[in-house]
């Protein structure tokens, strides 16, 4: 999100603070779930950053007595196109817009700035019902020990068309982490209940999470071909595309190895379930 604001405002990412999770600041944030953060928050941050930029240009145009169209934002300053020595910093503009500022009392003609928020802007976006789904391919290479039912995922590849990767390394990390999470659900994690409805896997001693020791080599391929039409950034949500394909890919690979998918329809695919599917036991 800082990167989105940085790219609009030309301010170094290190100087941008993102404050999470404070409903005192933003009552209608909604939260980070359902692969929505880049799409929703990214879009909102971009819209708010553009509004801040436009506001700054309007103030600068008044102050410098030039037309807005001749100004541009570069290096954290509003500059006159063709004569960058004529400029005014965003900090100066923010101070000018500060309520109670003497410069505002003897104002540049900022009659077109209707609010009293200073150099700030709020933007809301509405969810777009389509166009943020990621296209992805999951490939799993597995070995099945047919005598014990133990599955070993030897290699994994996930390729995803994310529209626009705001930060490719983050997208890659999210995909790899998502695959590990998916492997947990496919091979290990189970909410098991006894006949009285008592949860039997209520601690991490029994509810088995995957760790780095259980992760195969995973390759994530990030593709940016099909931009999302639903938001100006062209981004799509990548939170769920990592985990969601794993069970199908791994179970299909196991079925391929065994030559049948019969009885391979309960997750997680524990050694015992796989050996039962293989059959031939006593």
């Amino acid at each position, binding site marked *: 999100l800082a990167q989105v604001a940085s790219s609009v405002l030309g301010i170094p990412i290190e100087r941008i603070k993102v404050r999470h999770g404070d409903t005192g600041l933003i009552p209608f944030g909604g939260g980070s779930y359902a692969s929505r953060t880049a799409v929703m928050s990214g879009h909102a941050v971009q819209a708010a950053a553009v509004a801040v930029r436009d506001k700054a240009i309007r103030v600068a145009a008044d102050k410098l007595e030039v037309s807005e169209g001749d100004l541009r934002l570069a290096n954290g300053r509003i500059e006159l196109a063709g004569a960058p020595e004529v400029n005014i910093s965003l900090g100066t503009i923010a101070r000018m817009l500060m309520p109670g500022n003497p410069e505002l009392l003897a104002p540049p003609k900022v009659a077109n700035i209707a609010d009293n928020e200073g150099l700030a802007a709020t933007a809301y976006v509405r969810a777009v019902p389509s166009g943020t789904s990621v296209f992805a391919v999951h490939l799993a290479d597995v070995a099945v020990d047919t*005598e*014990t*039912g*133990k599955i070993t995922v030897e290699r994994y590849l996930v390729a995803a068309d994310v529209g626009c990767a705001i930060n490719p390394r983050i997208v890659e990390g999210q995909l790899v982490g998502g695959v590990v999470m998916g492997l947990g659900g496919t091979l*290990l994690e189970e909410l*098991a209940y006894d006949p009285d409805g008592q949860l*039997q*896997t209520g*601690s991490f*001693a*029994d509810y*088995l999470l*995957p*760790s780095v*020791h*259980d992760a195969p080599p995973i390759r994530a391929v990030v593709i940016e071909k099909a931009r999302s039409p639903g938001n100006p950034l062209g981004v799509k949500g990548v939170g769920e595309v990592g985990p969601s394909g794993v069970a199908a890919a791994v179970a299909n690979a196991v079925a391929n190895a065994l030559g049948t998918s019969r009885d391979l329809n309960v997750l997680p695919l*524990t*050694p*015992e379930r796989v*050996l039962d599917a293989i059959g031939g*036991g*006593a």
Partner: protein
Amino acid sequence: MRPVPFDYCVARTVDDAIERLAQGGEEARPLAGGQSLVPMLAFRIARPSVLVDLNHIDALAGISVTGGELRIGAMTRQAQALNAPLVARHAPLLAQALREVGHPPTRARGTIGGSLAHADPAAELPAVMVALDARLVVRNAAGERMVSAADFFHDAFETAIRPGELLTEIRIPLENVGGSAFQEISHRKGDFGIVSVAACVTTGANQRCTRAALVFGGVASTPVRCREVESRLVGRELSARTIAAALDAIPGDRFELDSRNASRRYRLRVAPVLARRALSAAASGARPA
């Protein structure tokens, strides 16, 4: 969760530890590496009155060969034993099994004696010690006594150690070095085995087997040694056919564990598979190069 409140003291010598354990009575517990005990405290499964910390008693840690035995101090860290040349030479089975015990961080703290005294039915080291005919040194205020590994494990989490006593050393005879192997199936790398098996064999003239040991962990409340399988191997050449035939004698009636983690039926089914793999690997290790 937070543990139930308990007292804590640091023992400086073995005698000091034994005295403090005796004072603490039935609910006093020694603290070794803490890799099982500390989570049990957090779950409130363990509610000791006092913990006697053994981590500052240097005399309890160390590996040596003395009197025809490999001697391992009870507080020797698993990682230290795993990497010790003396263990590699005289008890390779222990090193093979230790690779399956937890992860490097848990092995850096976890101790050999702690794992044995804890006596988790699914743990690896009890089966190893039974397979190696190890003797365990137990000390109390009156002196020392020796307990064979076969007699040490009484039930799940119960051993021959009585209140006021401390496991101080493990002694492994040197003559049992031959070929060995450890096999286990677990849900994740580093987890306790669903089924684990320790195998070691020695061979003499004409490649004939002179000693065999096959011990399962994770199938009953204590390690299950397969004497009948062993006697079918001794005196024979360890071919695939001999091994397969001997495995019919795995004492399935002694397999008791049946849990959500894995059914008894599953354990019975994979036990011969793991045993065959372990015995085959042990047999090829026993052959002179």
